[in-house]
């Protein structure tokens, strides 16, 4: 099947070339980071995790969202999703790959990464994150590839895939749960120290991921002869609206607890993010933009006419995706570090090299996604004749 990725139009090759160039530029800056150290990023003693870990957190969510296609199809026999589950699984593959790369570029001593396996530490959540992420990567590539292969050959998928598919469902939940546990189990970081962090991560994941899948479906429909189907897109849209509402609800619960109890160690972070603290507030406009985008998206999505109109649906999905990206990819991580445990404020803004390395990692993800989607849509096109 891989040969399908080797035949394509001029546009296809140009797109791949652009990605490769972006990756090369990103890699160049990564080599500089390797030589100089993480000092070329905006991170500091106080904000010791930044853009990389935030992107990782956001993308774990995108990866987990594949389950929103897999679960209805395999557990509820919702046939409409049958032909696009592979789109979700391949998105998961590309996303998890980016997650792993973001962890690697965030390490101060990446060449020592095998120490995590040489000295396994089950008390560390990072150890479990390594296991669930790698497991999820393999599950999705094995399932997606084999089911697609069976579809191409006109035979039912092999029997041994069934248990893997069933395992992949709770596994998807586990990757984002463990990722939330990285943060919410830390004493003294009031912003993350909340039991609702994992549910909130999952809700925002099931909003942003399917929103992205809808956008990808629009693109697939435009550049290939494969149509993911209007019904499938509309069902996804309903998933997006429910998940976005759940996310907003969880967020408001969070706000209530912090604002009503007024415990400073919890409230200070939210104050910093939304109003600024002691004159510091680089993220304030971003956070309000995020809220505005999510609210606008909810309005568009709950109105049936707007949801059924693919133009407004497209806008709503872009709003959800960017809104949640700001929340998780900007606010969630640095917000937890500001103020620091001594109640001092050091602000965080990513640097240009840091942003370029980040874009480079995204380009790797999009390269893998493009190749996998080329194969998948190629097979689907052949079947359609």
């Amino acid at each position: 099947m891989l040969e399908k990725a080797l035949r394509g139009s001029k546009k296809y090759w140009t797109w791949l070339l652009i990605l490769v160039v972006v990756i090369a530029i990103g890699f160049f800056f990564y080599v500089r980071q390797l030589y100089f150290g993480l000092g070329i990023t905006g991170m500091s003693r106080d904000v010791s995790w930044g853009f990389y870990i935030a992107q990782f957190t956001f993308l774990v969510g995108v990866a987990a969202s594949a389950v929103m296609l897999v679960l209805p199809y395999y557990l509820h026999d919702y046939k409409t999703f049958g032909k696009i589950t592979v789109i979700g699984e391949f998105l998961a593959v590309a996303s998890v790959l980016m997650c792993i790369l973001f962890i690697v570029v965030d390490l101060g001593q990446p060449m020592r990464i095998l120490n995590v396996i040489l000295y396994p530490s089950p008390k560390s959540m990072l150890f479990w994150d390594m296991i669930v992420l790698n497991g999820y990567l393999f599950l999705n590539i094995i399932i997606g590839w084999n089911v697609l292969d069976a579809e191409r050959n006109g035979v039912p998928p092999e029997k041994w895939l069934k248990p893997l598919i069933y395992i992949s469902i709770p596994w998807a939940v586990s990757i984002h749960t463990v990722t939330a546990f990285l943060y919410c189990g830390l004493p003294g970081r009031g912003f993350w120290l909340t039991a609702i962090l994992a549910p909130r991560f999952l809700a925002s994941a099931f909003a942003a991921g399917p929103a992205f899948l809808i956008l990808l479906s629009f693109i697939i429909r435009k550049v290939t002869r494969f149509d993911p189907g209007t019904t499938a897109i509309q069902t996804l849209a309903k998933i997006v609206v429910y998940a976005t509402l759940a996310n907003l609800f969880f967020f408001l619960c969070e706000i209530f607890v912090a604002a009503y109890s007024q415990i400073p160690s919890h409230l200070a972070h939210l104050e910093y993010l939304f109003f600024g603290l002691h004159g510091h507030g680089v993220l304030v406009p971003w956070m309000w933009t995020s809220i505005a985008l999510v609210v606008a998206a909810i309005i568009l999505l709950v109105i049936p006419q707007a949801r059924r109109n693919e133009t407004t649906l497209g806008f709503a999905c872009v709003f959800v995706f960017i809104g949640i990206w700001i929340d998780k990819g900007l606010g969630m991580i640095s917000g937890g570090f500001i103020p620091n445990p001594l109640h001092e404020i050091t602000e965080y803004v990513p640097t240009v090299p840091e942003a370029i390395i980040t874009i480079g990692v995204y380009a790797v993800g999009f390269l893998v996604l493009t190749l996998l989607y080329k194969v998948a849509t190629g097979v689907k096109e052949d079947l359609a004749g």
Partner: protein
Amino acid sequence: MENSRRRFLKTAGYSILGVGAGSMLIGLSAHPTKAAGSGPSAASLFKQRPENREAERWGMIIDTRKLNESICEKMQQACHSIHNVPDIVGKFGNKKHEIKWIWPTEFRHAFPEREAEFLTEKLSHKSIIPVLCNHCDNPPCVQACPTKATFKRESDGIVMMDFHRCIGCRFCMAACPFGSRSFNFRDPRPAIKKENPDFPTRMRGVVEKCNFCAERLAVGKNPACVEASEGAMTFGDLNDPESEVRKLLAEEFAIRRKPNLGTFPSVLYIV
């Protein structure tokens, strides 16, 4: 053709899986002896020096009443010069990448949850509270570390670092509720004023922090800051009722930073 290729791939796949699982098992089974370090075999191989100081749980009491800014500065200098802590701020002018093992701060920063509106002049305006790693009895940083590069020494409770095992993930920095850990955002060596050949320097990309002067305890000395503190700091075994620290605690009321988090710091303050 198709069939044999498939069979080959299958065999290759299983072999990789087998090798992977096998090495994992070896890693898991080999680990207890490796990590123990101070187990019976290691203890007989490596003898302690006769002057080595032993304790069940080292602790420190800081009497801030006896401190002023200049003593605090001397303590920091003593510590940082002995441990090759780079002067990042002085050399590169970058406060964000600062490395510090012990540093004086104001009461409201050392004890942010102890909201005190009406403090004495000295406590509200002067940086006279030295803060350092608390060598918690229940250290969250140790739990967070994915490689056991930071660990609590079984014998005396000191929370230590293996700079050579640290992968620089900075999970421990997020886990520490006291902001006691620093990360080498760049090569620290050019910023070391005068290198002490008796203590290792660090490279970029690893975390570091106070080690309660484990290397000085091993040769019978007190920690450097205690020596420089002009009597404001007392160091000893918290588990020994006859120790100096316990005698002091029997007389004075001492507080710890963020006791509500359950980490049980081994550094106490008399304010």
